[in-house]
């Protein structure tokens, strides 16, 4: 009986969201507001238990950092307070007189992640790609790969107008891009249809037991 109630609620909410295909209506508004509210509360709990508790609360109040015990006598316990403090400083933006302090936290966050990301991005997206695509032109596949790569790079060259030989390569590049987009569109649509099949299966099998 309990399962039937929750399944029915899920089915009603599913149909409420699908009613959006006709037009905006109170059922869709209710489902939309419900999911926004529930997800906000859900993520609040997720973020606390997955990030704040293991990285700030546990090291400081349980005096451990990972597997290593740390104590107020050692110099390491305050390390866990620094990111916690930076996070708290973000809330100063609610107080106009000290709102500028939040920029410190934001600057450290953005700058730190940008700096840490430079080396792995350069390795994965530039260096390894050069190594993988500098292919000998001994087969049609290799020729297509190299020409497609050079054409695409030429298309995204902004320092010169696309004229002459650069224009030829750029137009070749856009053709390769559009072929790639078409293939990507096709297989992504397939995966979206499979999501729809899952929902219809829920309605017809789990709820109505028709199939």
């Amino acid at each position, binding site marked *: 009986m309990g399962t039937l109630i929750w399944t029915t609620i899920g089915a009603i909410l599913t149909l409420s969201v699908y009613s959006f295909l006709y037009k905006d209506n109170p059922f869709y508004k209710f489902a939309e507001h419900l999911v926004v509210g529930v*997800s906000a509360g859900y993520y609040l709990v997720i973020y606390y238990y997955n990030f704040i508790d293991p990285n700030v609360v546990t090291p400081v109040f349980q005096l451990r950092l990972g597997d290593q015990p740390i104590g107020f006598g050692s110099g390491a316990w305050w390390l866990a307070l620094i990111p916690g403090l930076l996070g708290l400083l973000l809330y100063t933006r609610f107080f106009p007189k000290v709102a500028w302090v939040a920029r410190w936290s934001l600057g450290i966050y953005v700058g730190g*992640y940008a700096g840490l990301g430079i080396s792995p991005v350069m390795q994965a997206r530039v260096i390894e790609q050069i190594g993988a695509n*500098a292919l000998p032109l001994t087969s049609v596949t290799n020729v297509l790969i190299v020409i497609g790569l050079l054409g695409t790079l030429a298309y995204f060259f902004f320092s*010169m107008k696309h004229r002459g030989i650069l224009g030829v390569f750029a137009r070749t590049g856009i053709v390769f891009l559009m072929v790639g987009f078409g293939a990507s569109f096709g297989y992504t649509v397939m995966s*979206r249809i499979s999501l729809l099949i899952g929902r219809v299966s829920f309605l017809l099998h789990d709820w109505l037991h028709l199939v």
Partner: protein
Amino acid sequence: MKRTWLTFLAAAAVATSLLGAAVAQEAAPVVEEEVPREDVPLDTVAPAAPGALTARDYLDSNDAGDKIELDWELSPDDGAGSCDVAGYFLWRSRSASSPGEIVAELPSGQTHYVDRNLEPGAEYFYSITAFDGTNESAAVTCAPVAGRVNLFQTSRASILALMLVFFGLVLVFTKLAERGDELFVRRIPGLNAIEEAVGRATEMGRPVLYVPGIGEIDNIMTIASLTILSHVAKITARYETPLIVPTARAVVMSAAEEVVKQAYTEVGQPDAYNPDNIRYLSDAQFAFAGAVNGIMLREKPAANLYMGAFWAESLLLAETGFEAGAIQVAGTAMVSQLPFFVTACDFTLMGEELYAASAYLSREPKLLGGLKGSDWMKVVTIALVVLGAVLNFMGFETFVNWFRTQ
């Protein structure tokens, strides 16, 4: 003829029977007299200990200091003497007073082993014993050893080299831009559409909806989006057009508030800034999409700008905006979502055009320097690919292998 066949079949049957009887007799078990177990003597003699054990830091130009290399001499009973060595136990400890734990059980005949996943710089004590299945020899120890981290990983020299080239190019062009030199950037077709879209919204008296994607603030697409948001906010502030910015991340909302407020202040319209228009909706992907769809249908923006990192919600947003009759301009570097934006939006900034847009619109020296630096980095990349392809064709793979860092 028939009699001959019958005679042949009868003879074959008899021969088969005789053969089967002979095989059965041969397969019959031979019962031997059993020897009582208590008469078999147990092996109580341990094998001889292995020879000298040496341990040293594993020498590798890319070593992280977490490996120790060990060599030893075979036990005299390994392949000689009593010939009963079944293998060796390798022991490791963090102190000289304790034998520690067995880290490897090695077969007989082996004289070399590399111990991995150790703590760099920590001292380890090793010993080795030979065993024959019943008894274990005396332990042979060696001096303590610690692994050392190599200062430079030679397998990643190509990353350092190209990063230095890239940084150099960006610095040079940034200095040129700061000096006031004219740095040419070709016209990007989708950018003019942004101003047209905002103008259309102003004429219709309806708001502009700017969606900075659902990426976190550390996502480079989100950062580029916020730069474009600053430009859009200045235009809407000048025209006094409402600007709605829904976000899916709390920190992005904070950054968007800063950007929009700053833009309105620079244009001289600080009072027109409405913080309620910068909204955090939900971290959940489809809850965010549903809420943005609701904004589109209820507040009816005339222009929708999607700039940043999007995933599966891209088509939901773009299709709803299309149905609502808004002019739509999108920009993302998510290859999987570009097809949907190209299909459903009026103009699309593809891939690096999103990053170029922020430099093109703001004309900030640092952004222009970054754009020009990355442009000439593409020229370097093209040259390296062509050179690598030619050398590869000629059979010289060393050059290309230098870029394979994994």
